[in-house]
């Protein structure tokens, strides 16, 4: 029997007993309610108590209870009626009261509740006594029905140390106290997979038969006494490989015995150069913190830029020596560089050599394979810094041809086609563009193969005609340049013009000789021919031919475009020409090709630097292809050819000998400059490097290979809008745009041409002589609203004159001012973009122009609101402090790219 059943039976039994004596004749309390165990019955009807007396029943009454007053009947109710352990559905409850008629007559008592089903709760009971005469008396009392009572008692709170992310905890079952009721087995909401660290309230609940379940709670406290373990890197060194690289501490990790994911933090987000103490902190769910410290030394060694193949040599054993040059890398911790080689641009890389921090060149003494890639890695002690982009190099091979009895137009005898060939060993990777190189006029006979002196003889072939002498290898003297070029991916051929040497002029004949070689190479490249057979068939690209010539050869190459216009060769297209120290016997003007000219400032042979004339004439065409001229201070005429070993500057006829840079420097410069020239003019869409465009100094790598800081003065023109060349109608008052020029404040502002510009002015070019002595004079060239949006720079050519106004001057600094149509002005000092030295080291220097190019970006930086789409004028203003007196020649003002 359950507690609940017992309660009901007891209660109902008690009520039945009371109700069975209901004749009402007496006012006995009657059967009370035996609330049963566990019920706090209170002072109610308890007829079933062991002593048989009501505990809280109304006392029996009789007439004596009547007052002497006038009442007819008296009644006494219980103080309260309490029924314990009642089921939720209620219990039948009947109340009784004692009553007596004062006349001792019969009395009837009726009560409420009277067998009513009362749910647990409180209500009011009422009893009424009536006499037969109808007199009544009544009383009330509280009725309290209490619910069945079952209780759970949970175990006490428990505290235990964690054993993992969750901890197994054993809890005693709660105690069930079922004084009046029947409880089922308790259950718990405690986590089945263990308790986490911290406090967890566990609720036990037990069902109660016929009633609401009962519950209790207890607390489980899992403690974590150990801090997390943090695992960070051992002390290490990191290298920043580029200036904008953000270095962060390497990842750390943390574990905790009881927290699967402790919070991990680091006190340093980004690492600075030098020593960094980086502390990682991990905090677990219990709030305990562990740390790990890594000492990180950050070095800065940025990747080199401007990596180039500056030289290559075919060695006697057939291997290729390659020299790589680069620009110095940034990074305060760089200690040196490593040259690395790979079979493909992506590696794998093999370290070839290491050099010091001041080095800008390194070589691979024996390049293997056919095609290799080189890169330069900046070193910071034992650590690798940034790696450069890679540059490709081809292993070299040599060949040659010596074809006799060849007929060459304009040459009045059958002659030799003699070529010294250098080409990539792996021809299958071609076709490679063809580069022809032509030496200059020079003796063709020497006493011994290693003699320095060469002598003229008149020959119809390659050989010296005098059997007492050996033939001067004039073509071989440019083999070094052919090798460097070939390693860059060209078939380079240095041809002999020994049969043209030691004759009057013979420029046109040399140009025809070049054409004959081009025709021969057209044959080699298509059908093949002796002595190569089919070796070069399909391996030579004649649609992109470059020509290089020295001295008279330099003039001859400039004549080739005209020769080919008159007598084209099918499939042959010359795209690039470079003249070194050319003569100018015949006044050629190369057009429809890229044209560059090198002027050796200490030239003791072509002393008037006649290459300026060829270059100036090439500017006459609105040809967007590059035009460049470079004055090379300290260079003589001969030393660009390894076989021309006599210094034409003699004991200082042009320059003090101490100013000469020497043969190796000249050849080193030429390798770098000619390589850059080819790279910027032969490939489709190529753009010459910044230094060729007069936009940047000579690359350090070229200086380094030359072995001396090179003093190069460039002029450059390409796609441009000619504002004024001082040669148009109305000059100088009206410029090429038809706009007005104005010259104000000058001591002299005079337009000149050729010799009228001065005895040391070598240019075939109109110019303005501008001399000033204070006052800030201005030369203004009207632009008439020209749209500058499509142009990159404002360009002009200028040279500091040989003039008393320039006494003591080292350079010229002035301002170039760009004004838009609305009058907004932007000024840029020339010294911010380039250097305009006063002349150059020479006994009797010429006035050689150099180009000053001011980027539009500089103007816009100076005046952001400048409207470049409608330009009003460009001005040259001489008002910079320290340069308020001077004299210059100025020409070729242009908007240029």
């Amino acid at each position, binding site marked *: 029997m359950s507690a609940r059943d017992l309660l009901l039976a007891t209660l109902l039994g008690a009520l039945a007993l009371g109700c069975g004596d209901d004749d009402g004749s007496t006012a006995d309390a009657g059967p009370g309610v035996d609330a049963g165990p566990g019920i706090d019955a209170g002072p109610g009807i308890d007829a079933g108590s062991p002593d048989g007396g009501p505990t809280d029943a109304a006392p029996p009454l009789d007439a004596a209870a009547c007052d002497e007053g006038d009442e007819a009947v008296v009644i006494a109710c219980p103080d309260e009626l309490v029924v314990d352990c009642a089921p939720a559905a209620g219990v039948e409850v009947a109340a009784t009261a004692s009553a007596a008629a004062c006349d001792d007559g019969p009395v009837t008592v009726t009560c409420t509740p009277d067998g009513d089903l009362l749910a647990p709760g409180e209500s009011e009971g009422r009893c009424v006594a009536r006499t037969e005469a109808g007199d009544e008396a009544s009383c009330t009392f509280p009725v309290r029905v209490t619910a069945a009572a079952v209780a759970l008692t949970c175990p006490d709170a428990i505290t235990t140390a964690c054993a993992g992310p*969750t901890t*197994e*905890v*054993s809890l*005693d*079952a709660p105690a069930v106290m079922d004084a009046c009721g029947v409880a089922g087995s308790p259950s718990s909401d*405690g986590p089945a997979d*263990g308790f986490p660290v911290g406090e967890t309230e566990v609720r036990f609940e037990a069902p109660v038969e016929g009633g609401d379940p009962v519950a209790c709670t207890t607390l489980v406290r899992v403690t974590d006494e150990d801090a997390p373990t943090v695992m960070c*890197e051992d002390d290490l*060194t990191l*290298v920043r490989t580029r200036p904008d690289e953000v270095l962060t501490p*390497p990842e*750390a*990790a943390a*574990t905790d015995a009881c927290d*699967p994911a402790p919070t991990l933090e680091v006190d340093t987000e980004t690492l600075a150069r030098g020593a960094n103490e980086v502390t990682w902190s991990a905090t677990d769910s219990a709030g305990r913190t562990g740390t790990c410290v890594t000492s990180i030394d950050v070095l800065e060694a940025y990747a080199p830029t401007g990596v180039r193949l500056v*030289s290559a040599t075919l060695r006697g054993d057939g291997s290729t*020596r390659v*020299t790589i040059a680069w620009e110095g890398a940034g990074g305060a911790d760089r200690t040196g*560089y490593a040259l690395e080689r790979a079979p493909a641009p992506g590696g794998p*890389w*093999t*370290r070839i*050599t*290491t*050099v*010091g921090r*001041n*080095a*800008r060149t390194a070589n691979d003494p024996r390049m293997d394979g056919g095609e290799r890639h080189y890169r330069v890695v900046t070193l910071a002690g*034992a650590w*690798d810094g940034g790696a450069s982009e890679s540059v490709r190099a081809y292993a070299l091979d040599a060949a040659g041809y010596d074809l006799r009895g060849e007929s060459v137009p304009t040459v009045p005898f059958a002659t030799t086609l003699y070529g010294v060939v250098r080409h990539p060993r792996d021809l299958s990777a071609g076709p490679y563009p063809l580069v022809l190189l032509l030496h*200059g006029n*020079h*003796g063709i*006979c020497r006493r011994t193969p*290693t003699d*320095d002196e*060469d*002598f*003229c*003889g*008149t020959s119809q072939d390659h050989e010296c005609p005098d059997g007492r002498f050996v033939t001067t290898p004039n073509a071989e003297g440019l083999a070094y340049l052919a090798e460097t070029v070939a390693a860059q991916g060209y078939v380079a051929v240095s041809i002999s013009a020994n049969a043209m040497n*030691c*004759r*009057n002029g013979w420029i046109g004949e040399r140009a025809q000789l070049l054409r004959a070689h081009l025709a021969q190479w057209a044959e080699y490249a298509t059908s093949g021919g002796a002595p190569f057979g089919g070796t070069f068939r399909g391996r030579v690209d004649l649609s992109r031919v470059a020509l290089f010539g020295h001295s008279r050869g330099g003039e001859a190459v400039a004549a080739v475009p005209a020769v080919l216009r008159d007598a084209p060769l099918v499939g042959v297209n010359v795209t690039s020409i470079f003249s070194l120290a050319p003569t100018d016997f015949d006044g050629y003007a190369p057009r429809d090709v890229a044209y560059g000219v090198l002027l050796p400032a200490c030239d003791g*042979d072509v*002393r008037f630097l006649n290459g300026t004339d060829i270059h100036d004439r090439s500017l006459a065409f609105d040809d967007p292809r590059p035009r460049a001229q470079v004055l090379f201070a300290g260079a003589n*005429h*001969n*030393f660009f050819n390894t076989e021309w070993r006599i210094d*034409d500057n003699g*004991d200082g*006829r042009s320059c003090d000998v101490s100013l000469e840079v*020497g*043969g*190796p420097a000249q050849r*080193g410069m030429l*390798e770098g400059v000619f390589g850059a020239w080819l790279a910027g003019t032969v490939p489709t869409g190529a753009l010459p490097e910044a230094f060729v465009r007069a936009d940047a100094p000579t690359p350090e790598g070229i200086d380094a*290979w030359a072995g001396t800081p090179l003093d190069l003065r460039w002029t450059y023109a390409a796609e441009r809008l000619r504002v004024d060349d001082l040669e148009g109608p109305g000059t100088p008052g009206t410029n090429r745009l038809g706009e007005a020029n104005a010259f104000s404040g000058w001591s002299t502002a005079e337009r000149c041409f050729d010799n009228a510009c001065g005895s040391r002015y070598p240019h075939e070019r109109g110019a303005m002589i501008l001399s000033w002595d204070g006052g800030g004079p201005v030369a203004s060239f009207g632009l008439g609203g020209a749209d500058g949006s499509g142009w990159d720079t404002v360009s002009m050519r200028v040279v500091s004159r040989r003039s008393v106004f320039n006494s003591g001057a080292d350079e010229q600094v002035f301002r170039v001012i760009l004004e838009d149509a609305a009058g907004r002005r932007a000024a840029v000092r020339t010294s911010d973009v380039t250097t305009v030295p006063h002349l150059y080291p020479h006994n009797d220097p010429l006035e050689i122009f150099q180009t000053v190019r001011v980027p539009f970006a500089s103007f816009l930086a100076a005046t952001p609101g400048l409207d470049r789409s409608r330009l009003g004028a460009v001005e040259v203003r001489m008002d910079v402090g320290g340069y308020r007196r001077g004299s210059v020649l100025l020409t070729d003002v242009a908007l240029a790219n």
Partner: protein
Amino acid sequence: MRTFHFGTALPVIPEDMRAAFPLAVLLVAAACATSDEATPAPSTPSGPTRAELEAVDPATDPEPAPMPRALTDATLRLSAIDADEGEDGRGALVAAPDPIALDVERDAGWPGRAEDPSLHVGGLRFERYAFPAVTTLRFVAADQGALPMDAPVELHWGDDADATVALGTLSEARP
């Protein structure tokens, strides 16, 4: 007594952290990436120059020789010649009624250079030349009777006045 069991303790490393163990040395790994592919050459303070390259190449003589300021050892000789044409000294090549070769001899021979030699005889200028021998620079005058025999004779190269060679007079050179 009934006992309630709650879970089993397991130390856990989060999945996304496992990859971090063992922690790799970052970024600097490249320092040794190629160290076993080649034996690095000793570090040198600076890279090679073209001069250094040529200094170790026995095929190239790095020492230049200065060119004499003037070829003072040249002599002028007049020689009879059988020629149909010769220069008139005024820029023209004309029929030669009385040709004569103006040979400038130099035992050491004549260097070739960019500029052409020209022979100035008084006010006449002869520009067409040939080298019948390595030691002989020859100009041909169309009419020896028209030559100023006592005028100074000079050899020039282009407009290079510094390279002038004085050769006396034709009278002195007459055999």
